[in-house]
């Protein structure tokens, strides 16, 4: 009977897993359209099944997996985000060999992301990290050229090292509490060194996944080597999942261990380094990659405030939703415009609507009200202030000034005169549809933020 309840609560995850398997079968018959259709259907079904669940607060399988506010909203954010990514993948590599494999890997990685978002146990976190990691390496390597191979290799090596550090460090927590459940972390009170060892494990393992400085080195290379749609997918889904996992782990840890301060330092370093490095990039994908590194710093502000501010969890969720929308949008425009900053030259003139959409995404990434990104940042900054980290909030605001400098480097050439011989032409309708969907979300979800969880 217990088992039946657990399975019912897990319906979205099981649906997604089934869809992923079916996608692989369909790929055997080289039916790429069918693969896509199954994937979209599975994601839609899983989303619909989640809709009645956000109010549930339960655990399944002996407390190892949580069905709660965070994992519920994680599904509502990650599943539609994955569906949009699938469309981008289709738009970019339709008809190329192994298209279906890429699609099915994307869905499998999302399954891993859901594992991370609902983790109630150290082992589930490890499974989540491995499941998202292995799929991602293959996705990055898909183009089979030197750049992609090198990027994937780097990604893999980073993953291997940080993953082993994480597993090693987590054994200390297991030793300290006698259980792998996070709910038992309260017993660590007083065992300073054990707490620190496990914390370092979590910070390294999830920091790598969420591309926090100084575990971010793989990100720009991986995004640059991978197809643009895969870079878009990795930059939003696996990253958001890493921060959901952070929230699941650290909300049970006593706040007196000094970890909020350590994370605050990392947050400040991440956003500052990310934007400074973005300021001097000439490759558009690398620029957005560094900007997404900087966005991780904002995510981390919410983690820093966990347990000390009612804004923390809503902040992470709302910002994640906004981030998925606006970053996917920015990458989708890159997919249409080209991978180099020069490719944007005059883009806003030849494609006025897409140019305007890009401006909206970039302003939202900066955090200009009333766009969606502002609401998320507003919650996160409020959380940091309430938790007593005013200095971090100030650094966050200062960095948003820097962010504007970064994003203006994109906006300004977009509206310059078009060089002779510049690109013209219509975009792929699938990409345009994705841009439209995330544009509507970015523009109007900020005003409808009351629908999302609040403090």
């Amino acid at each position, binding site marked *: 009977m217990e088992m039946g309840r657990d399975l019912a609560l897990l319906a979205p995850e099981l649906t997604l897993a089934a869809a992923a398997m079916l996608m692989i079968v369909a790929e055997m018959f080289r039916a790429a359209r069918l693969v896509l259709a199954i994937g979209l259907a599975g994601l839609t079904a899983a989303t619909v099944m989640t809709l009645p669940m956000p109010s549930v607060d339960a655990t399944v399988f002996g407390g190892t997996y949580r069905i709660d506010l965070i994992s519920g909203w994680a599904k509502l954010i990650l599943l539609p985000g994955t569906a949009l990514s699938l469309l981008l993948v289709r738009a970019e590599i339709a008809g190329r060999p192994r298209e279906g*494999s890429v699609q099915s890997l994307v869905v499998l990685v999302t399954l891993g992301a859901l594992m991370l978002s609902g983790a109630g146990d150290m082992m589930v976190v490890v499974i989540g990290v491995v499941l998202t990691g292995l799929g991602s390496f*293959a996705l990055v390597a898909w183009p089979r050229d030197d750049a992609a191979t090198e990027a*994937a290799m780097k990604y893999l090596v980073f993953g291997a090292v940080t993953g082993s550090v994480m597993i090693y460090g987590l054994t200390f927590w297991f030793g300290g509490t006698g259980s792998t459940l996070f709910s038992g972390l309260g017993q660590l009170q007083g065992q300073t060194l054990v707490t*620190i060892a496990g914390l370092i494990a979590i910070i390294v393992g999830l920091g790598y996944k969420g591309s926090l400085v*100084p575990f971010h080195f793989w990100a720009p290379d991986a995004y640059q080597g991978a197809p643009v749609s895969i870079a878009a997918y990795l930059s939003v889904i696996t990253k958001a999942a890493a921060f959901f996992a952070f929230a699941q782990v650290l909300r049970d840890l006593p706040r007196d261990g*000094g970890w909020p301060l350590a994370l605050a330092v990392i947050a400040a370093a991440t956003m500052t380094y990310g934007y400074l490095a973005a300021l*001097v990039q000439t490759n558009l994908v690398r620029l957005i990659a560094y900007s997404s590194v900087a966005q991780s710093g904002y995510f981390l502000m919410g983690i820093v405030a966990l347990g000390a501010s009612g804004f923390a969890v809503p902040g992470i969720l709302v910002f994640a939703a906004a981030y998925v929308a606006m970053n996917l949008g920015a990458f989708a425009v890159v997919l249409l415009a080209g991978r180099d900053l020069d490719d944007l030259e005059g883009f806003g003139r030849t494609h006025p609507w897409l140019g305007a959409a890009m401006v909206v995404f970039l302003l939202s990434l900066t955090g200009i009200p009333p766009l969606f990104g502002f609401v998320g940042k507003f919650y996160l900054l409020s959380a940091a202030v*309430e938790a007593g980290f005013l200095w971090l909030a100030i650094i966050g*605001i200062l960095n948003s*000034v820097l962010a504007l400098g970064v994003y203006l480097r994109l906006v300004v050439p977009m509206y310059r005169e078009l060089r002779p011989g510049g690109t013209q032409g219509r975009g792929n309708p699938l990409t345009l549809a994705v841009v439209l969907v995330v544009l509507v979300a970015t523009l109007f979800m900020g005003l409808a933020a009351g629908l999302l969880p609040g403090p």
Partner: protein
Amino acid sequence: MIWLALTLLAPFGAGLAALALRRVPEAIALTGAALGLAGAIALFAGVAGGAEVTATLPFLPDLPIRLVGSPLTATLALVVAAVAAMVLTYAAGYMARDPERPRFFGTMLMFVAAMQLLVLSGDWITLLAAWEMIGFASYLLIGFWHGREGVPGAATRAFLYTRTADLGLYLAAFLLIGIAGTSEISATLSTTGTPALIAGLLLLFAAMGKSAQVPMQDWLMRAMAGPTPVSALLHSATLVAAGAILLIRTAPMLPGGALLAIGIVGGATAVVTGLMALAATDLKRLLAASTASQYGLMLIAVGAGVPIAALLHLIAHAAIKSALFLGAGVFQHDRESTDLDTLAGAGRARPGIFAGFALAALALAGLPPLAAFYSKDAILAAALNSISAAWLLPLALAGSVLTGAYMGRALKVLWTGAAETPRDPVPLMAVGMGVLVALAATLGLVFKPLEAMLGAHLAEPGWVVPVMGLSVGLAGLALGWLLAPARLLGPLLAPARNGFPLAGGMDALVVRPALALARRCDRLDMWIIRRVVLGGIVAGAQSLSRRIERAEAGLLALVNAVGQLNLSLGQISLRTDRDTIDRAIFGLVDRTIALGSRARRLQSGFIHREMALTVAGIALVTGVLLAAPLYF
């Protein structure tokens, strides 16, 4: 409520229409501006008795969007709508030959709508949103002719300067919301004590950026790169006014310390930018510096504790400065330049326009019975009666003398010199400017009823202040007309012409270090490798890289083994389709193995260095965590 909506939505809707339809932008713009003006007039009439109209829309939980039509906000909305309507009329003539008119009028209307939102906002979040929108819209407008040299730079500079100052507004808003527990502006104004002082100083910082107060005045001079109607709008009732409006609206909360800081910043600006205006060699830059100077005078009034005087001067200045800019635009239209040498005698060629320009200039200098005579007297009286009179009065008087002096100089340049016949009549431009000049001349008459409506009473002027104001105005005009700036300024001329490089040193303080830091960050990898890693970490890094290779080999073996296992499972279940299975299900494994062999050939050689940095990061985190108990 409906008038509130019309005031906001008419320019907004018209802006959207102009951008979307891309035809007859002038007609759309003028309709939108007229409807917006009608809405503002009706709103003003509705709240004239002292009533308040509010509209509340749901937004974030507990933080709804509020719009407030109070006597103060309705007055400001009316000023914005009236100036916008006239400037747009003028622009219909000025921009007649520009191929990009839809974009121009669309952006202008959006700008006006954003300004109305700012003026009417009743909560901090809406105010922040509007504040950002006007910043962005002004960026688009200043950069309107982005093809021309120097224009994108000027627009970016204006944006970055004002953005930096926005930091103050964000922090102040967070602080006030946090303390009052609500985002409603009127409710947060009851904040007292230290928080009020901090918030007041932060608000001052925000206002300094937007109103181009010393030392952040530089962007305003460069913002002249935009079309003249844009300057007229930015400088009179909108962008630059936002800073002063912010302080006027929050004045009830400001404690003595903040007031003194505001007064001194205002006074310093009035004098410094007044000198810059006097030294300027370009008519539009002269007017721009004068704008900053006049806003300095308004800040003196706020600092003296009489925000109503600042409001009156803001209204008078809105009409006067837009009229002056529109006049300058006509001269620019004739001579294709705004350089003062080129413009010599331009006024003589167009006596009608010159008369209007002169009337507005005399009004700004404070001659009775023109508008600024009353408002400037109110400011001088406020400074005289303030507890900080020793600081504020000399600065206010110096600012007033300089006002007369640079206006006198401008009039002289425009009038003396060779006249030439103007090329063509400019009816639309003349109408827009004429109405504003008429307002500049007569607005003084409505100040008394306006004071009554706002529930504020200025002290009776007596005779000292008017005499003082009139004499400094006349003295300034005479100095400006009779003496060349070189004689008047002496050694100050060169620094004033360069915009007081010390005071305008934002570039050196903020922009350049930020870029340098960015470049350094980009080279961080190389730098660390050369300077730090070579020292002693090299050995560690190398051993680490060997270890990584082993880890990699182990992982590959593991992956291989898993792959083999899965493959054999696959063989059992679907023996017939082995090849497909291999490719499809275990494409992942397949890829990873291929990857390993390929990467061995690649020898990127960088990973171990980055891993060394990662290890350094881990060490840092460990250090912070270990040291943390010391803080708690």
